[in-house]
């Protein structure tokens, strides 16, 4: 705000005061609209012929005391325009303690785009009202709205957080959307309101099926180590190529493809536990990926181990928080190293390996041994010839069938 120029100079003290006040209430009311739209209930407010002191912008927005307190705490009562952006983060928390950030609403200001001629008391105030109406409408159409209407104490609840500063969008997962709700010009810059929302919802009823629930139960004692939580942090860096971001499951045989030539053709490939017999391999190089947003948590010294002595190759976990990782070829499957308390390290790895062997079946030979076109044509010709020679047999069989039909 200090770089402001002529515009601020021209702005009268009264206008400046008004503008700050309007902006503060815009922020407070925006927070109310967003949070109230995520409570899971339909909102209805009444029209009033006479506005009262709390009815800002001629829009009947209820003030929930708790939200007001949170928003005021974030704003700190300072000159609001100088401290924007203000963000309201909406997240989902399951009964198991998993949480997932759904969207972040952001009210920001661009000081370089200002309109000194605009009238604060009239035009700015009215446009703030329109911006809030747009906010009311848009809050009902982002994916989090439907989720919030279905929340319940035995499935998941929606949480919010209000903070000042640049929006933290890295937890929204890959391919999040950003939508502009609206903007308005003021003498000190352009106020803009936007939302960024998650598009990939991985915690959903169909994904908490039987198979996954067995594995996911293992984080009872470490609510922070939710694999889903981890997963979104891993996608912070959008520039990383796909191959960099692919993770290998905790027990997954990361070198399966290299093993195939070692086995004789006639042996049945991928016998359960076969990896125990295979020579030890080096794990793939650590992906050039991102640091976790939160400080790493130490987990019994197991996280850095590459080879656990059972012959299973355990790739290093990217975030170093635990040996959680996921199977690369199955988006929805997340596996957690079973860290049973008081048990020796990786007592369950055989089970895990067995599970993975079964889960990802080997490629069918049909696909690896494709016959040439000539061979295929030859096969067809042979088959046709065989059919022709056996024509007599078929006729006889047909006749016998007809006869037996008649008998019945």
């Amino acid at each position: 705000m200090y770089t402001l120029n002529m515009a601020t100079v021209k702005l009268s003290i009264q206008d400046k005061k008004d503008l700050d006040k309007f902006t503060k209430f815009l922020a407070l009311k925006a927070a109310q609209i967003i949070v109230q739209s995520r409570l899971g209930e339909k909102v209805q407010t009444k029209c009033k012929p006479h506005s009262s002191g709390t009815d800002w912008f001629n829009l009947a927005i209820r003030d929930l005391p708790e939200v007001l307190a949170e928003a005021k705490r974030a704003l700190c009562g300072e000159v609001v325009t100088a401290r924007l952006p203000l963000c309201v983060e909406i997240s989902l928390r399951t009964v198991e303690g998993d949480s997932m950030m759904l969207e972040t609403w952001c009210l920001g200001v661009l000081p370089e785009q200002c309109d000194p001629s605009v009238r604060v008391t009239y035009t700015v105030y009215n446009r703030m009202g329109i911006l809030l109406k747009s906010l009311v409408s848009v809050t009902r159409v982002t994916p989090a709205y439907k989720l919030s209407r279905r929340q319940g104490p035995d499935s998941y609840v929606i949480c919010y957080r209000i903070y000042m500063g640049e929006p933290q969008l890295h937890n929204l997962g890959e391919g999040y959307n950003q939508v502009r709700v609206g903007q308005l010009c003021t003498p000190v810059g352009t106020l803009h309101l936007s939302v960024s929302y998650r598009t990939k919802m991985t915690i959903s009823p169909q994904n908490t099926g039987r198979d996954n629930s067995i594995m996911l139960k293992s984080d009872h004692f470490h609510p922070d180590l939710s694999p889903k939580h981890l997963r979104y942090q891993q996608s912070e860096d959008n520039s990383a190529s796909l191959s960099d971001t692919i993770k290998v499951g905790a027990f997954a045989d990361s070198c399966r493809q290299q093993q195939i030539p070692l086995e004789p053709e006639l042996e049945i490939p991928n016998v359960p536990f076969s990896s125990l017999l295979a020579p030890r391999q080096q794990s793939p190089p650590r992906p050039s990926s991102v640091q976790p947003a939160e400080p790493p948590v130490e987990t019994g010294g197991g996280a850095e181990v590459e080879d656990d002595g059972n012959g299973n190759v355990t790739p290093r976990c990217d975030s170093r928080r635990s040996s959680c990782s996921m199977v690369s070829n199955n988006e929805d499957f997340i596996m957690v190293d079973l860290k049973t308390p008081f048990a020796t390290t990786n007592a369950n790895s055989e089970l895990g390996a067995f599970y993975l062997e079964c889960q990802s079946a080997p490629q069918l030979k049909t696909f690896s041994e494709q016959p040439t076109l000539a061979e295929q044509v030859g096969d067809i010709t042979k088959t046709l010839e065989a059919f022709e020679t056996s024509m007599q047999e078929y006729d006889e069989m047909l006749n016998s069938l007809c006869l037996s039909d008649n008998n019945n």
Partner: protein
Amino acid sequence: MNARSQIFELTVEGRQVDEAVASIFHTVLFHRSVGKFQYKQEGSYSVGTIGYADVDCDFIDFTYVCCSSDDLDRNLKREISVFSEALRGNDGPGSGQISLEFFQKKKNRWPFQPERIPWEVWTVRLELIKLNNEHERQVCRERVGDMLTEKILYIAEVMNRHDYVPKMPNQSELDLIFDTSYADVQPYLFRVGFATSTPTNTSVGTTVKKLIKETLSL
């Protein structure tokens, strides 16, 4: 002056027509309504407060927001249902369009009616489809919901542009800009019109009709 025109095209099942149109028009009207003006002496006035309500659609996976004014809702729904019935009737054409037009009035010399000058027109073109089973209906519920999401975002974008809206009038001219017939809200003057033949013919047809009407009214 040319009116701004926004056209939305949607493909819906018959029973989704009313809700699809209402969600768009109500969102527009919510933005294009102000609180009721209360005039005091000496020409000063106070502006009332607009309440709003969430509306869940029955046949579309969608929730929209409207002004909480029963009268406004009733009037709009009535207009839409006339269109919907014409569109869905047995001999209905299967496609049609409905427009929400905002206009201001310009006083004419007595005895002529005030002239209506439109400044913004929102048109929804609908094409009806027939669905065979519940699965298709479920898909359609979601698809139309997604389409409406796009439309709502677009409406928000348009509303936040600094485009022309009529100037705030004096008390004597309030009726030339706003519809003051509602007790709780004060929308800009608007009317709803529709046509249920092929859209290209209609626009020409209505223009000609309008020309003739206007000539006669002079």
